[in-house]
């Protein structure tokens, strides 16, 4: 029925099945939009945030999603700037992941602020000392870039391609894409960093405060590293997931392994840097501000285990798995490691946003807890549903994985067979 929209030679499920797949997500999106609408119309009293927990689920979501979406810029960087041509196989997918992640984050930010109508004030009266200004500027710019990078993928659609003007525009746009990739990389480096700086600069929050290198706190660089590290992992993960759901081979195993290797390499560097940073913080930064770091880990449930999980369980282990060719070769381990890495960055963002606010600062402060309201959760789910929907439609009607057609010919590699069998069991 919608065959004329599906790229030539790609097998896609029947329209009915596709509808059955997206319907629940649309329902979820609808629910989320209602929740978000409540927050916009009735105000933020609909949330469980308060004067002490000024940031909640949403900021955590934004930081996480943007970190995971970093695959877009980093893959682009590797492909267009460092000319790793193998990655052409996933760049489209990466761009779309990035686009959904960023647009989702921006949408949630717009709901999170008390006066969305004044969003442009930041551009009109920018306070250049504020990390948030940096974030706002970079994210808006980069979202534009991502949108532009998305355009050619859309124009490649079988039907649109028929229109000569669109075809020509796509062709020309593709020629200058490396410029945008470069700009995108620059922007992403910046705002991934400033997102880290967001909490690193808070001298009033000794748990998050970090000493600066140049004009930025160390978290600035840690965020860049961690984002760059998990970006490819997340692309890997999504690709694998799409392969499982669509029951197709979409990219060569080598590409996935390459992604894993890159991820592992950066993750290793990140783990090192993070360890160093933590040590410096424990032994210098925090005590010098009069806060023995140990006191921050005395509050249940936030014990030292979080540090361990962040650095070893979700950092060192996946890094090792991804860097050891033998382990990487096992599809199962590769994916698991990528998943661990993603969990790691998620946990890190959680610690940065939520734990920081939960911990007391004043001597007579209490340890605070916070559970999001259904409106907050709903909005959160809306972003997830939105992401899934955009990706699903793109996967159906656009040619996300250039290698898909050729891979139909090749027989699946042995360990994948076994993998399939395993999944089958």
């Amino acid at each position, binding site marked *: 029925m919608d065959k004329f929209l599906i790229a030539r030679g790609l097998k896609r499920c029947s329209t009915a099945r596709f509808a059955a797949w997206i319907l629940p997500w649309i329902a979820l999106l609808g629910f989320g939009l209602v929740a978000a609408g409540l927050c916009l119309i009735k*105000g*933020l*009293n609909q949330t469980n*945030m*308060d*004067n*002490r*927990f*000024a*940031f909640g689920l949403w900021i955590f979501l934004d930081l996480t999603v943007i970190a995971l979406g970093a695959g877009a810029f980093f893959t682009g960087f590797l492909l267009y700037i460092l000319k790793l041509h193998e990655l052409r196989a996933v760049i489209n997918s990466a761009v779309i992941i990035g686009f959904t992640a960023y647009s989702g984050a921006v949408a949630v930010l717009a709901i*999170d*602020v*008390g*006066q969305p109508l*004044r*969003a442009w*004030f*930041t551009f*009109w*009266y*920018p*306070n250049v*000392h*504020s*990390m*948030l*200004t940096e974030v*706002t500027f970079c994210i808006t710019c980069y979202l534009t870039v991502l949108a532009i990078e998305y355009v050619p993928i859309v124009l490649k659609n079988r039907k649109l391609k028929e229109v000569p003007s669109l075809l020509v525009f796509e062709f020309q746009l593709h020629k200058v894409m490396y410029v945008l990739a470069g700009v995108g990389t620059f922007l992403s480096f910046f705002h991934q960093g400033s997102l880290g700086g*967001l*909490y690193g*600069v*808070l*001298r*009033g*929050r*000794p748990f998050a405060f970090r000493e600066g290198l140049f004009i930025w706190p160390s978290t600035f660089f840690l965020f860049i590293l961690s984002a760059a590290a998990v970006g490819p992992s997340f692309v890997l993960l999504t690709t694998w997931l799409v392969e499982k759901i669509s029951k197709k081979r979409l990219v060569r195993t080598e590409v996935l392994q390459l992604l894993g290797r890159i991820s592992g390499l950066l993750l290793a560097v990140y783990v090192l840097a993070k360890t160093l940073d933590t040590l410096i913080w424990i032994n210098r930064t925090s005590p010098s*501000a*009069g806060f023995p770091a140990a006191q921050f880990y005395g509050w249940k449930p936030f014990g030292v285990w979080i540090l361990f999980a962040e650095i070893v369980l979700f950092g060192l282990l996946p890094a090792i798995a991804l860097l050891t060719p033998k382990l990487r070769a096992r599809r199962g381990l590769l994916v698991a490691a990528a998943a661990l890495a993603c969990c790691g960055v998620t946990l890190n963002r959680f610690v940065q946003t939520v734990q*920081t*606010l939960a911990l007391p*600062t*004043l*001597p*007579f*402060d209490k340890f605070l807890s916070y559970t999001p309201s259904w409106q907050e959760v709903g909005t959160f789910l809306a972003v997830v549903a939105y992401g899934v929907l955009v990706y699903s439609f793109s996967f159906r009607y656009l040619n996300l994985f250039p290698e898909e057609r050729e891979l139909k010919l090749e027989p699946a590699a042995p360990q994948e067979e076994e993998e399939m069998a395993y999944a089958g069991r």
Partner: protein
Amino acid sequence: MRLRGAQGGARMKRYGMTIDIDRCNGCGACMVACAVENNIPPEIEADERKGITPIRVYQIDNGEEQPNRRTAFIPMLCQQCGEDTPCVHVCPQQAVDIDPETGIVGQMAERCLGCRYCMAACPYHARYFNWWDPKWPAGMEASLNPNVAPRQRGVVEKCNFCHGRRHAAMEKAAAGRKDIDPADYVPACAEACPSGAIRFSDLNAQAAPADSFRLLEKLGTEPKIYYRSKKDWVKRNG
């Protein structure tokens, strides 16, 4: 963002407070007076974490059991940090500023986007968000203070040492002498305090007593609210 209060010119002010914890009986007159002066609505649906109390009296104790337990009340308001003021440099759109003339940290409600980054930045939790539309009991709008504009929903506010009163005092001063008469400019909380625990002054003219301490002084943000107490366990909060 550095404030050179002391080195400043003759008319340069450095407003601050000295709060005698040993005199505070926790009656809350300051909190209510603040709300009256600054047209802060009674947040009917609010709880203690969503309300708006630019000055807020906390009860603290020495952590011991009866009969060794001791308690005290400590009024908390914006501590008017003078050095790398945490909230000023985080605001993305310059809605928070520090007036070099007075050292008062101000919040421009009509500029505020409501991102609440400043609230996350403030170590004293002295900033409050307008979670609800401002509402007063029927007819009570008539009794609002004309010198202060009520804030709309979705913006952050905080203690600004009753800028309405300062402007009134300046108008008065402009009519007569140059400098404003200290008697004309006293924030509502200091004025209302029945036990005289809160003393407001220009720290350039009259420095805080030597035996006073400041909260989280170690952060190095040079707050201008000084606290006093003879009790050691209270001093330990400094």
